[in-house]
């Protein structure tokens, strides 16, 4: 009754019913892989909700940050403990969901014309999500995250010309850790970064609605799928419930970031097995595999962290960001595609995607090279060299193998399609002879 009245009241003033009807009647293609992006959306919603709660419990000052998070880590405050755990778990799952969603978009060619812009927005959101995660991970000012910040500060400093400026802005001082570091990270973490994600997310989803979904069904003239209300709405509600349930279960079972065991940050305290959150691990791995050579340009040093810490991620990101245009250049395919390809339909994409994934996983593993070497009883230096060789040879080999498999599967599918059109059925007659059956129209 109240709902109906409100709907009418709004419609009389704004004419909202037409738009609402359009959205409720919208058709959503149904495939399990299309829910991956929705997981990311719901993790972001959980992050915002729990994050707002946490802003009231957190003290964003250099001295107050650690004690205020320590109070949340204390299990005698069960709600604060769970909200912080769910927030951190949700951040880890958010980046993971974005990556898996992105892999689906990549391997099925959903980024092709006319959706190149949405691909670039998506890649930007992946970067922003990682940065939001890293700034949040650093806020407690505990020893582990403090070490991570010191490394990040060193990487920033290594950038020619602007490095010192960037570090001075963040620290609010000409040394690390500056008095403004935690307050500045806080503003980035709760304001600039998440608000930008929110704006880009709106554009991302708005464009999906405006341009309509891609799909696997081979009907380029129509979107084929389920109606939003109530069919798809119930399905996405199930995804929402499953996302939060998973976060609750993780918070109950696996404790993340026990800062009470790390203690507050001191520039002179560190211990073994210092590793960051998983989405930053590839950078840590890259720093471990990086060179130790420092070159000088007109007396100015380029520290070794510059290559693995700045050049590698920027070149990789630029490549991924520009992939729709690179692929267009390589294949000459500039047609609009609303129907998705299977991963095996493009050996090029399959090869490039496999190569990227290979190096991403390798660098992530390299962030635990000391523990791996100890577990395997081999010298760390040996393992570092194995990883270094794999970093360059691995993606080539893995990419070529994947492309080859893709090409063969594509050929096989085409072959079977050719034969399928050529099938004849023999029928044994009552007399014992064979006759060709009349082909049935498909």
């Amino acid at each position, binding site marked *: 009754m109240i709902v109906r009245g409100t709907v009418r009241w709004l419609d009389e003033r704004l004419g909202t019913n037409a738009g609402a009807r359009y959205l409720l009647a919208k058709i959503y293609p149904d495939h399990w892989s299309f829910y991956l992006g929705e997981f990311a959306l719901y993790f972001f919603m959980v992050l915002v909700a729990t994050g707002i709660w946490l802003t009231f419990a957190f003290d964003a000052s250099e001295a107050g940050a650690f004690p205020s998070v320590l109070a949340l880590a204390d299990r005698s405050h069960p709600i604060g403990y769970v909200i912080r755990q769910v927030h951190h778990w949700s951040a880890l799952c958010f980046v993971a969901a974005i990556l898996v969603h992105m892999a689906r978009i990549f391997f099925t060619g959903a980024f092709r014309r006319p959706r190149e812009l949405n691909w670039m927005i998506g890649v930007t959101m992946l970067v922003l999500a990682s940065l939001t995660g890293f700034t949040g991970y650093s806020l407690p000012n505990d020893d582990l995250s403090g070490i991570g910040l010191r*490394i990040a500060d*060193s990487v920033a400093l290594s950038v020619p010309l602007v490095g010192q400026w960037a570090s001075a802005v963040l620290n609010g001082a000409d040394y690390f850790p500056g008095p403004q570091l935690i307050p500045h990270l806080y503003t980035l973490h709760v304001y600039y970064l998440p608000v930008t994600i929110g704006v880009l997310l709106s554009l991302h989803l708005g464009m999906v609605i405006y341009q309509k979904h891609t799909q696997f069904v081979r009907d380029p003239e129509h979107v084929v799928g389920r109606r939003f209300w109530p069919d798809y709405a119930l399905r996405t509600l199930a995804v929402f419930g499953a996302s939060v349930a998973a976060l609750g279960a993780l*918070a109950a079972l696996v404790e993340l970031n026990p800062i009470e065991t790390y203690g507050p940050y001191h520039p002179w305290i560190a211990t073994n097995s210092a590793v960051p959150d998983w989405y930053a691990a590839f950078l840590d791995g890259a720093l471990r595999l990086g060179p130790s050579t420092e070159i000088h340009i007109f007396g100015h040093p380029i520290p070794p962290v510059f290559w693995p810490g700045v050049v590698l991620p920027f070149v990789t990101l630029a490549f991924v960001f520009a992939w729709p245009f690179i692929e267009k250049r390589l294949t000459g395919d500039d047609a609009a595609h609303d129907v998705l390809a299977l991963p095996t339909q493009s050996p090029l994409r399959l090869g490039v995607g496999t190569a990227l994934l290979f190096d991403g996983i390798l660098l992530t593993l390299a962030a635990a090279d000391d523990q791996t070497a100890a577990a395997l009883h081999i010298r760390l230096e040996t393992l570092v060299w194995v990883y270094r060789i794999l970093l360059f040879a691995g993606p080539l080999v893995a990419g070529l193998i994947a492309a080859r498999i893709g090409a063969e599967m594509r050929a096989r599918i085409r072959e079977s399609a050719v034969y399928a059109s050529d099938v004849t059925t023999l029928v044994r007659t009552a007399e014992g002879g064979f006759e060709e059956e009349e082909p049935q129209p498909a």
Partner: protein
Amino acid sequence: MNVAIFLVVSVAGALGATAAAAFGAPPALFATALAVAFAGLAGAAAAAAVALHAPDDLRDPREARGPSDVQPILTDGVTRGAFNKLWLAAAGAFAVLGIVPLVSLARKPGRSVRTGWRAGLRLVDEQNQPIRVDRLIAGGIETVFPQDGVDIPDASAVLIRLPTGYVAYSKICTHAGCPVALYRAHSQQLYCPCHQSLFDVLDGAKNVSGPAPRPLPGLPLDVDANGYLIARGDFDGPVGPDDWGRVT
């Protein structure tokens, strides 16, 4: 029917979580009840979606988006020829002006390394207690600071007693600034837990393995008249990782 069961589970979970919070139950219990509540919701929604038996092949025609068929808005009088260049020049000038606030954001640009060490200053431990020559046995290790300077970010040094006497090196790694906190006594090497750089304590803390580009700076040591360890000066090299502005 399934929907109803799931919804009952969801309600039980939500009320259970509320009760757990009200009675101060352990966090794992609260989180579990929360998970049950949302899992119930997910189950109910999924069961309801299945029960709908709705078609999955509804068709909605796609409309072409762009290119738009509109007449260009005439701006001939103000954007032709020289005008265009002037507009661009103005935009460029404002971009240049924009650098001013950006640069001024860094109130203290550059980088200064403050170690606090000078000749005659006593070595102290974390509690600011001075260190006598008999503090460590051979193979012993201690983190030391300049007297009254424990808080100075780049001051920390590792003091190691070798069979031949004491040595001290900066504890800030020359690779990425991590504390070189671990000591392999059997091989007399300092080890950085962040990126596994190894420094040979017997050979001037030279970087022997890992990504560190140069040795850890050494701290020249002496003993004062009362038998306490003192510094003979600052570190013999720049502390911490290099940057563009550290011209050598």
